């Protein structure tokens, strides 16, 4: 599971949960995989992202490195910034671990890099 995907997932679907965001990450196994860098694609991805959530998520698994805490102005033309964003959004892969609902503590397992967001009938 990439951090762009984490940035979009919530547990709002659960009974009694009002926001369900951001999900905490308990990572057991993290790896980095090289993904082709497409500056135009990353530029269009950045406005969709909750940047604070991205930074906290990267920090919580020990991969923040030199990612700026805020989105730089005119980032479209800042290759250095786009490369850092690319790395954190697409190249960090959480292979095994758990996502945890911030309100209920319900755990969603991540196996083989795939988060399982399915709920039991009594949780909906």
């Amino acid at each position, binding site marked *: 599971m990439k951090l762009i995907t984490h940035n*979009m997932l919530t547990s709002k679907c659960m009974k009694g949960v009002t926001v369900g965001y951001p999900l905490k990450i308990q990572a057991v196994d993290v790896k980095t995989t090289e993904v082709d860098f497409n500056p135009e*694609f990353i530029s269009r991805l950045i406005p969709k992202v909750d940047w604070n959530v991205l930074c906290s998520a990267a920090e919580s698994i020990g991969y923040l490195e030199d990612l700026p805490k805020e989105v730089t102005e005119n980032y479209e033309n800042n290759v250095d910034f786009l490369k850092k964003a690319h790395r954190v959004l697409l190249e960090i892969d959480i292979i095994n671990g758990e996502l945890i609902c911030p309100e209920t503590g319900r755990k969603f397992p991540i196996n083989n*890099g795939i988060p399982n967001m399915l709920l039991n009938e009594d949780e*909906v």
Partner: protein
Amino acid sequence: MWPCMKLRHLQELLQQIDGFDNPKVHLEQYITPPHLASHMLHTIQTHYGDIDGKLIADLGSGCGGLTLGLAALNAGLVIGFEVDQTAVEICHSNINDQAFSNIDIVQCDLTSNSFLSRWFKQFDTVIMNPPFGTKHNAGIDMDFLQKGFALSHNTIYSLHKTSTRAHVLKVAKSNCVKAEVLAQLRYDLPSSYKFHKKTSVDIEVDFFRFQILNNS
């Protein structure tokens, strides 16, 4: 015309993908035949440029045929959404075999509205080969399509039984989405289930392109 991998190469790649060993009837698990999937994807890229460098969702991604094809055609990122554990596992092994890194899979229930959450209108392109809703799950095809409309800010590509064309067009219109049948295809469905009497059966299927209009 947009640049694209050769159709033949795409089809060869899709032929290497493992399908379902024991497809589940209630989920209508059919793989998209490789020749059909490759033609669909090739058209989407060469005619419309809706794959290369795009953020794409594959709804009901199954064993990952369309997902891997999208990745091969240089999608910026493909996110496959799938409910079934077995399908997710086969898909994972297919992704590993082909070593694509521009794919993420999320296991979730697509019929629940809640999975949309923050994904609403975030995708450039949504693609799906939905269940046709013929196995005691009437309406699920339109449910998938409505999810596609909610997720995409631009285009949606989907397959629907030709016999339901008028209904599909009506649903699109009522959602302020422009719908166009790009091709009428023959879906050669091998007899994957015990209750199938013939070795294969052809179904007429429409390959649809939907365009979200700005005022929707």
